[in-house]
């Protein structure tokens, strides 16, 4: 790295305190030489030899945001090219970049102040990669590419039998003529690919295929003139077999690895039936018994029972009536519903899920980086082996046979399987987890889950249901409860709701003020009331009493409450199980005695009374900590965690923090299990890919000759079948 200067737009700064906090947060990052933050413009200028992602992360941890832009591009390139493509986009302004070599999707997070998506598209085009930047264009382009492969294959399949016929009947001139369309037309994609790789000083599968085809074909063409052995058959069959294998492989990968958003139509209240994509927020959609809901919305009329197992994994149908939220892709078991649309189709839960699943495979898991380095050396090593094979055999056998051995080496080597091994394994695990209601947003989090040492749970809403109960403990004045209930009726805080449920007596309330995280204040029937946590009361009422929440009337504590919550089903068993292997903790902002009781009941240590910042610091201080909490309120701790999991509340996953979004606590076991499986699948795939090359390259080089000999065309067939095998094995392994 060298010294650079970058301008970032900081979001959320209000005053000089904010400027100080942001400046300090940036200065903490390694390699920073200078920072200047401007409150008026909202820009920060950073200078030094630093990593941009660390700067962004540090500012976000300090409670501010940095303007970033996410770009998804589909790159048309061979899997083994991914390290080159990633290094082509490693430039100023790029915060992070991931490439899924199975689907070709390149995800970039950029600083729009320094670089634009057009700049990146330009850089990648210069590199020679074909790019598409919308999902529809993506699908069309995949189809177009597949069609071109099919046409090439048809031409190859038509002419190759003719080449074989004339070759074996001794009409070499005709064999040559009919091999021209096969080599030039059908084989052109490999020559083009090899040229692109060469221009970028790289080598890949295309290099190997085009080298083997052109060596065989040119050598034969020269011998046709000079008189000697020709193998137009081998050259043509080589192209045909590689094409057949690669077309099937591309088709399979497209069909299996690309998850599609299901297509639906929607019946509007106007009687019109339209494509679900055309429905707008505010439209009323009608759903009848037995139909799938095409959109997210709120029940506007009618009642019905809905099977939401696609979201919750719970197959018991839930009753829905007017005002209840409903989610697209759930199923109306019986009844009739009119739904007021609250989210357009592209933003529904299921669409977000599909995007998350498709994106997760782009994660650059640790082992992939190692494999990527190996791939860089793989093809040059194969070319060296092919040359060596030629010279060794040239001393023993005729030139033409020595050449066939070296062509076979080039044709049999399969760098693709190496490139596909890791992303396919990630893709499969991410998809399996998504079926259990776990959305893995970053594949690397899944890889990290197996290294977790401690598991920290948030309490309210995570371990417990979050439905609080207030229990009066000290009551000096009976009317204090009714007055407190009347005042808290104006609060939307869960504690407020719990207190307000204690009395239904109507009273005159005025001057209600709520202090976030502290308490409330107001006048009730002419008395000044203050309800809040102990330290809040202490600061303002001088006196206090025992309890979690104290009611102070006209400067004197008059009543206090304990706040209790209900533990979710199955938590005890889950925690008992996790305690066997992990250090389990509960971190909570609640300072009530209920938190202690809960810790005793579950047999885990509870750290209570923490602010959001303190929770985040606790998570950071623990080695390899997994934090599970509410994706909105615990965002800070989730971001600080080695693996951050948010429990899904509502269906808008894009608003939640977390590498992984789960729908229940039990999902933690699936995640850890998935992490171990991922590692073993990656190992299996790599063992297969390396094993294949380690066995077949020596055979192609003629190590078993004359007992066994692998002609170039069958070497090419074995190569393309290997990619298919890795793909099929990844997806259909029991």
């Amino acid at each position, binding site marked *: 790295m060298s010294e650079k200067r970058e301008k970032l737009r900081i979001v*959320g700064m*209000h*005053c*000089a*305190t*904010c400027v*100080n*906090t942001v400046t300090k947060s940036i200065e903490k990052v390694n390699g920073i030489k200078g920072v200047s933050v401007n409150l008026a413009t909202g820009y920060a200028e950073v200078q030094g030899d630093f990593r941009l992602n660390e700067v962004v992360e540090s500012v976000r941890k300090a*409670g501010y945001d940095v303007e970033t832009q996410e770009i998804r591009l589909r790159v048309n390139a061979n899997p083994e090219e991914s390290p080159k493509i990633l290094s082509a986009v490693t430039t100023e302004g790029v915060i992070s970049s991931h490439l899924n070599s199975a689907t070709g999707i390149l995800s970039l997070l950029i600083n729009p102040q320094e670089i634009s998506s057009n700049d990146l598209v330009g850089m990648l085009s210069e590199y020679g990669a074909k790019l598409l930047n919308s999902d529809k264009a993506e699908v069309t382009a995949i189809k177009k590419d597949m069609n071109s492969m099919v046409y090439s294959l048809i031409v190859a399949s038509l002419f190759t039998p003719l080449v074989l016929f004339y070759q074996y009947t001794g009409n070499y001139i005709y064999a040559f003529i009919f091999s021209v369309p096969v080599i030039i037309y059908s084989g052109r994609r490999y020559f083009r690919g090899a040229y692109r790789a060469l221009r970028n000083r790289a080598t890949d599968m295309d290099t190997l295929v085009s080298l083997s085809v052109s060596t065989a074909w040119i050598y034969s063409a020269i011998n046709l003139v000079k008189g000697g052995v020709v193998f137009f058959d081998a050259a043509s069959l080589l192209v045909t077999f590689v094409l057949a294998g690669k077309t099937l492989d591309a088709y399979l990968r497209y069909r299996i690895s690309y998850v599609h958003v299901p297509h639906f139509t929607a019946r509007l209240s106007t009687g019109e039936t339209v494509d679900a994509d055309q429905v707008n927020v505010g439209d009323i959609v009608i759903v009848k018994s037995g139909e799938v809901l095409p959109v997210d919305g709120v029940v506007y009329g009618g009642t019905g029972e809905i099977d939401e197992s696609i979201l919750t994994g719970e197959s018991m149908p839930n009753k829905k009536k007017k005002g209840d939220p409903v989610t697209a892709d759930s199923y109306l078991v019986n009844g009739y519903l009119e739904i007021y649309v609250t989210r357009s189709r592209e933003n529904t839960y299921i669409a977000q899920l599909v995007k998350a699943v498709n994106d997760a495979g782009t994660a650059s898991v640790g082992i992939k980086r190692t494999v990527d380095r190996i791939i860089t050396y793989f093809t040059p090593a194969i070319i060296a082996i092919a040359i060596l094979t030629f010279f060794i055999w040239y001393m023993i056998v005729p030139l033409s046979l020595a050449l066939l051995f070296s062509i076979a080496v080039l044709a049999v080597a399969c760098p693709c399987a190496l490139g596909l091994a890791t992303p396919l394994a990630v893709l499969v695990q991410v998809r399996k987890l998504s079926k259990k209601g776990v959305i893995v947003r970053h594949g690397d989090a899944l890889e990290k889950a197996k290294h977790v040492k401690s598991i920290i749970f948030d309490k309210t809403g995570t371990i417990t249901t979050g439905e609080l109960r207030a229990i009066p403990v000290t009551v000096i004045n009976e009317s204090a409860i009714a007055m407190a209930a009347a005042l808290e009726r104006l609060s939307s805080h869960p504690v407020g709701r719990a207190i307000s449920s204690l009395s239904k007596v109507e009273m005159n309330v005025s001057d209600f*003020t709520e*202090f*976030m995280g*502290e*308490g409330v*204040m107001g006048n009730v029937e002419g008395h000044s009331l*203050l309800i809040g946590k102990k330290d*809040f009361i202490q*600061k*303002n009422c001088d006196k206090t009493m025992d309890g979690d929440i104290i009611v102070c009337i006209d400067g004197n504590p008059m009543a206090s409450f304990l706040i209790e919550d209900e533990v979710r089903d199955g938590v005890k068993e889950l925690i008992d199980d996790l305690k066997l292997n992990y250090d389990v903790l509960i971190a909570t902002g609640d300072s009530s005695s209920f938190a202690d009781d809960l810790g005793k009941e579950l047999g885990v240590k509870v750290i209570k009374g923490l*602010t959001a*910042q303190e929770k985040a610091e606790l998570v950071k201080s623990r080695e390899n900590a997994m934090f599970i909490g509410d994706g909105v309120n615990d965002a800070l701790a989730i971001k600080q965690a080695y693996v951050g999991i948010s429990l899904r509340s509502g269906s808008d996953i894009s608003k939640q923090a977390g590498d992984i979004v789960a729908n229940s606590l039990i999902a933690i076991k699936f995640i850890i299990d998935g992490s171990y499986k991922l590692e073993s699948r990656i190992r299996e795939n790599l063992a297969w890919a390396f094993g294949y090359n380690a066995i077949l390259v020596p055979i192609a080089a003629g190590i078993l000759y004359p007992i066994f000999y692998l002609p170039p065309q069958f070497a090419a067939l074995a190569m393309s079948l290997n990619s298919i095998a890795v793909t099929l094995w990844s997806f259909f392994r029991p």
Partner: protein
Amino acid sequence: MNKIDPVCGMEVDESTQYKTLYKGKVYYFCAANCKIEFDKDPEGYLKSGPREMH
């Protein structure tokens, strides 16, 4: 009505969600960070006035 943030000295609207009650008086802040700073040392800010102004 506008109030003064005791930490940074900025003018703040009373309707802000960042506020606290200290010794019976309500103080308003421009953002969460100022409130956190105030809670650490309320007496200090009330005696010497806004510190973070440049």
